[in-house]
């Protein structure tokens, strides 16, 4: 079996890796952003609840949560391994993304809100048209970090038997006895995925940068 065949066998798992990432990441972003807005603008009690959410889900290893969701919850609602894995990773990621968005919201000066209110914008409008657009720009660098983490963490769903990159590497390693080659191939594919994505986000960051004189 030559290297090409080896890699192409493992690379077929990319569709699952990308699939898990494309579910977990946007789900985490959506939940994380909503929770971050509640955290920052929702008052004391809501803030504490959000803090609790973040503490809990950042305190559990993703793999453990994955097993809990798959073995406990999925029995009741008949969740496939793929979906159970993607959603648990999304929940874990939502806690981290909430912290990223919260940090970005807080980094936009409160004066911006003041100026927005002064021309008659409501609080909601001020958040939407003045604070969020600036926060998004600030959030991209730490977010690109989180994207890399989610892509790599997607490998955890191998434990539920989803035939993604790592799982296929494991299978071919066992049948060919070429362990090093199998896992090096998997590493290469993961690396390329992360590398290309972060490059793309770098470009986005530069594109969205607010023009200013040096």
């Amino acid at each position: 079996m030559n290297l090409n065949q080896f890699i192409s066998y493992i690379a077929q798992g990319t569709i699952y890796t990308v699939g898990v990432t494309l579910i977990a990441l946007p789900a985490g972003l959506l939940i994380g952003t909503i929770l971050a807005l509640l955290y920052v603008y929702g008052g004391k009690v809501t803030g504490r609840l959000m803090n609790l959410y973040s503490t809990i889900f950042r305190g559990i290893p993703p793999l453990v949560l994955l097993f809990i969701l798959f073995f406990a919850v999925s029995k009741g609602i008949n969740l496939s391994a793929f979906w159970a894995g993607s959603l648990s990773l999304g929940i874990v990621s939502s806690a981290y993304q909430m912290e990223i968005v919260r940090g970005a919201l807080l980094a936009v000066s409160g004066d911006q809100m003041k100026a927005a209110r002064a021309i008659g914008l409501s609080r909601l409008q001020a958040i939407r048209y003045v604070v969020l657009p600036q926060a998004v720009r600030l959030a991209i660098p730490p977010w690109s970090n989180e994207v890399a983490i989610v892509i790599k963490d997607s490998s955890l769903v191998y434990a539920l038997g989803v035939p993604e990159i790592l799982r296929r590497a494991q299978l071919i390693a066992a049948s060919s006895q070429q362990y090093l080659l199998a896992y090096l191939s998997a590493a290469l594919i993961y690396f390329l995925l992360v590398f290309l994505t972060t490059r793309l986000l770098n470009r986005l960051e530069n594109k969205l940068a607010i023009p200013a004189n040096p």
Partner: protein
Amino acid sequence: MPKPILTIKNLRKSYGDHVIFEHLDLDVNEGETIVIIGPSGTGKSTLLRCINLLTRPNEGQIWLDDTEITSKNCNEDLVRQHIGMVFQNFLLFNHLTALGNVKLGLTRVKKMSDQAATEKALRELERVGLADKAGHYPGQLSGGQQQRVGIARALAMDPRIMLFDEPTSALDPELIGEVLEVMRKLAKDGMTMLVVTHEMGFAREVADRIVFMEKGYIVEEGSPNEMFNHPKFPRTREFLWKITELYGKKKEDAA
């Protein structure tokens, strides 16, 4: 007897035990330019922030025309549309161009069409002499230009009254003139203005009335002539003398 646009009665603001000001009364008539002067920490800026409801006073009333804006069922967002505010540190929206800054209130608050808002915003930028900078972001403008955009942004809402909170204090000396020039023109055009500033030259020349505040009280108010030449209280004289000397020195330094 002209009818006041803004009436302030028995206003009191405190943070905990710390009283910023109390028993404060002030009327602002249509077309009048009032300059508020006084040492820092006197409550001048807090007063402006109470007027556009960025801070709530603890006691007293404020009327804008016939509406009591301090009443509980008053719509804050509606009130702020009619009161223009210019900040010491400009506070332009950093992610929007000069045009975008002026347009935002027009499209989102006044719900104007994009085209109408652009036309109106360009007229306002023209008014402050910055139509050619419409496409520039705040980071690409000088402090003086940023402040003029800030003024245009407030003007665009067609406010009944404009509040200026030390509009030139954060500017390099050579940039102060262009901002004062815009304000001078506004006053001449009949805009009602309430200005907190240390620019005594501007106060002397443009103000219809000067209000001297200290430690939360209005010590004295009168025409520039009365205040500069015949102040009733020694404290007014002392403050004006000091600040005028400082202002003169600043001019020499700049020259």
